[in-house]
């Protein structure tokens, strides 16, 4: 368990470093990427391209292995349906992302900077997550 905790911590640091270096922590740059009809900033294409290329190699390797190095099995999503919750949820997320230039990874990582607006966004995000859980429990 200590090995898995250490691995998770280390991978978290690498993720946060990558976000910091890539410019993803800068809401103006992220919003600029979404501003296709205005002053479009293509930087995020490079971020996504770099991330997906390396992750693609990692997942290709994972498919050839019987199990992960430190645990009993690979924990992969099994739901393959493209349905209304998937698309509706993604649309709501996209609206919030466009309004703020923030998505969950950069927002959580930016807590370290102590920037006051992040302490408005992240609590609101946690409330939104809890609200979905309540709605889901109510609707079954």
């Amino acid at each position, binding site marked *: 368990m200590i090995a898995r905790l250490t691995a998770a911590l280390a991978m978290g640091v690498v993720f946060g470093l990558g976000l910091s270096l890539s410019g993803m922590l800068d809401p103006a740059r992220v919003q600029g990427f979404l*501003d296709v009809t205005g002053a479009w900033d293509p930087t995020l294409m490079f971020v996504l391209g770099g991330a997906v290329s390396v992750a693609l190699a*990692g997942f290709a390797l994972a498919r050839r292995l019987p199990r992960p190095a430190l645990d009993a099995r690979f924990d992969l999503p099994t739901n393959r349906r493209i349905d209304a919750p998937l698309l509706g949820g993604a649309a709501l997320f996209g609206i919030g992302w466009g309004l703020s230039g923030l998505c969950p990874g950069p927002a959580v990582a930016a807590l370290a900077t102590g920037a006051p607006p992040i302490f408005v966004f992240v609590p609101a995000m946690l409330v939104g997550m809890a609200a979905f859980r309540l709605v889901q429990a109510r609707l079954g």
Partner: protein
Amino acid sequence: MHPYLAGLTGGALIGLSVAGLMLLNGRIAGISGLVAGLGQDRGERRLTDLAFVAGLIAGPAVFAWLAGAWPEMRFVASLPVLALAGLLVGFGTRMGSGCTSGHGVAGLARLSPRSLAAVLTFLVAGMLTVAALRGFAP
């Protein structure tokens, strides 16, 4: 460093983290799922999720120590708009089972059609939102 090169290198580090968490622990590095899991999971899974999130928060501090400056952050929204956006991001990422990391990086790298549909949807919604913002305040 040119922003595009910094983006590509930083992106590669993000990909390394996603690949590493899968190859080592067998887990998808989806931040919205990991953060929500802190309030739901029990036992070891909660601890490993907490360790990843703690590392994620430490990342910018490590960057500041290495680079000698904190990453640039220019906020674009007022506090009420940030609060509304936070609610939408939290609710939407749970309803849609993922965000930019889980669907955008891990999902696309797994060649998942479900994740591709989510990514296209949140990109288009984000672009329309910014276009509307610019339209209202040119």
